[in-house]
């Protein structure tokens, strides 16, 4: 190329090459998304194909059994319900109160930094470690009843609390300072400002984070395996200290069965679990879109 001539064959060829590279790159990106979503679709289709025939009233209302045709999911679902109740009752108030303290009241001191670091780390600690904690503290030290919704709920609450704290802090941070200043201006104390004005405005964001944290806890298996929540439960648990199982654990236990008939049960239980999770996430998204105020 002697001079810059856009029409010289060499320049045209180079341009064509660059445009082809551009197109290839874009296609690779699209391919990555299609592949990822394809995998999701494959997973859902296989579970539906295997499990949808097993979804009937007997399955939804029955409990575990050694016979695949009479085994049902209600016993485990009730265990999940009780466990989630304990988790919610503990992690929600504690998480919200901690978030309020750290965001509104905490002095800028060294030990507050330690609290923050430890919350951020707890949110990333593998869930199985929380199971080891539950086993060592709740069961071996405090002698609480093994495989009960109480211990399961306590363990999951410790796991869920950091998630709620982090989302709660973000929601509180998003409330503009002018709201607080207006409240101070008419004579409200700091506690009054926080509980009467900041907290209600931050609540939708906090609830969204809570639901997402609870959805994660609902699907969690590994920590519950550590505290022995793999009881063979023929009747639904009727108290917080009764031996029980939970939905993901039921899936795990059935998947271990040698009898091929349990494939249908496992897939059907997975469908039930996924419906719950999708519903929870749907509610979270709805809450976020409906109540979140962009300041």
């Amino acid at each position: 190329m002697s001079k810059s001539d856009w029409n010289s064959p060499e320049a045209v060829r180079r341009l064509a090459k660059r445009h082809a590279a551009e197109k290839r790159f874009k296609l690779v990106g699209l391919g990555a998304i299609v592949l990822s979503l394809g995998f999701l679709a494959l997973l859902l289709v296989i579970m539906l194909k295997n499990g949808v025939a097993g979804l009937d009233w007997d399955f939804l209302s029955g409990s575990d059994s050694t016979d695949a045709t009479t085994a049902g999911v209600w016993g485990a679902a009730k265990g999940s319900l009780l466990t989630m109740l304990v988790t919610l009752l503990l992690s929600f108030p504690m998480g919200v109160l901690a978030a309020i303290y750290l965001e509104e009241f905490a002095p800028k001191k060294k030990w507050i930094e330690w609290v923050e670091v430890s919350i951020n780390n707890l949110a990333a600690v593998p869930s199985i470690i929380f199971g080891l904690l539950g086993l060592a503290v709740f069961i071996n030290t405090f002698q609480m009843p093994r495989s009960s919704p109480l211990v399961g709920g306590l363990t999951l609450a410790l796991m869920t609390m950091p998630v709620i704290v982090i989302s709660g802090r973000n929601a509180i941070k998003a409330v503009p300072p002018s709201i607080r200043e207006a409240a101070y201006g008419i004579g409200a104390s700091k506690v009054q400002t926080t509980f009467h004005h900041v907290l209600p405005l931050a609540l939708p964001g906090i609830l969204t984070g809570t639901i997402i944290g609870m959805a994660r806890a609902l699907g969690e298996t590994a920590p519950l395996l550590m505290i022995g929540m793999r009881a063979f439960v023929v009747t639904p648990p009727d108290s917080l200290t009764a031996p029980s199982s939970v939905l993901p654990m039921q899936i795990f236990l059935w998947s271990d069965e040698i009898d091929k008939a349990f494939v249908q049960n496992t897939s059907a239980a997975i469908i039930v679990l996924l419906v719950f999770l999708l519903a929870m996430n749907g509610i979270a998204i709805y809450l976020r879109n409906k109540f979140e105020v962009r300041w």
Partner: protein
Amino acid sequence: MILTGVLLAVLGLGLVGWFAARGRARLLYTGRGSMHSMPAYHGWHLALWIVVPALVAWLVWQAVMPGLVQGAVFATPAAHGLPTDPFQLGAIVAEAQTIASDPGAVAFNPEAQALVEPFRAAQVKFGLIGAVIVLIVAFAGGAFGFTRIRPNFKARTHVERLVLGVLLAASLLAILTTFGIVASLVFEAGMFFKDVSPIAFLTGTHWSPASTMGDNINNNFGAVPLFWGTIYIGAIIAMVVAIPLGLMSAIYLTQYATRDVRKWVKPLLEILAGIPTVVYGYFAALTVAPLIRDFAASLGMANPSTESALAAGLVMGVMIIPFVSSMADDALAAVPRAMSDGSLALGATRSETIKKVLLPAALPGIVAGVMLAISRAIGETMIVVMAAGAAANLSANPFASMTTVTYQIVQMLTGDQEFNSPKTLSAFALGLVLFIVTLILNIVALRVVKRFREAYE
């Protein structure tokens, strides 16, 4: 039974106290500025004075009562001639206690049956004493609180001080949890390292904890194959899947996709992250593993196992995709617009801009994201439990069955063995290693992200 009722009674008293104090404070109100606190705060102040001391008394009595009851039972004639062996005695007392609280239960042991009546009597007696004490404390607290209702009394300040204390306690729970994790892991792992030398544990290459009866226990707890399996599955195979797919989808979504596409595809991708790991594990075991076994067989491998590192790693990689994608998304978004605009203005195509300008600029953020993804992958349990296998293999063959740290933790703790054997305790040592490694990965990654954000602000 009685004590539960007392608790409800105390709460009821608190409610009554709330209304009473508010009513009294309203009577004292004589006009603007006549009182320091609003009437409702006087209500809260009195309610707290009733409930909190009574609650403390209740808790103390709950802790003290079993000892008193037992002492009273042993003093009755029915307790004469009980065995002195503490183990037998404990069993009989525990049985009698169960029957005393649950009328439906039946005694196996006649000696326990004889103790039931004294137990019930003592429980009723001490329950009543406790109830009276708790109620006295509640009334005393209430009386003291009530005398303090005056126009210039700073009820709000007192109530708010308590609220602050509760808030502080809630945020200290996080530190307490971290401390609990570290303490329990270190304590149990310490018991393990009494039997097995840490060096043998960290450098040994032979893992067969089932045969602990051998004379040289150190040879059976070499965890290197587990570390290798964990790294191979979580940090190599899974990342080979997750990094390209996650990164490319993030690039496509941020740089090429229209707004509408982005709005729909991003939540769909996030569904992948929301699916429980046990579902992935089942999918890996049911669908992916047989496919990979058949593929290995078609490559001419003899006797390929159903459980393979590849099956677990692939599925784990898919699980991590949305995580990598959203981290890369954040990192790309943090690069100033001016940098890519400059490159485009010089005539570079979009892909050239991405490869030559955006990616290098976002690299620290992406690397940190990958580190967080690895920390998540090596701590992942259910997929490897269901698809990776139990054999501790030190091999680079992706079709081989391979075990991981998390798999072995589950394996060691879900059997029916006694608690203090080295086999069970080894789970805590493995947990400690896992905790330390993920902690380091997280801290370093968060530091990098923070510094990276600051660089462009």
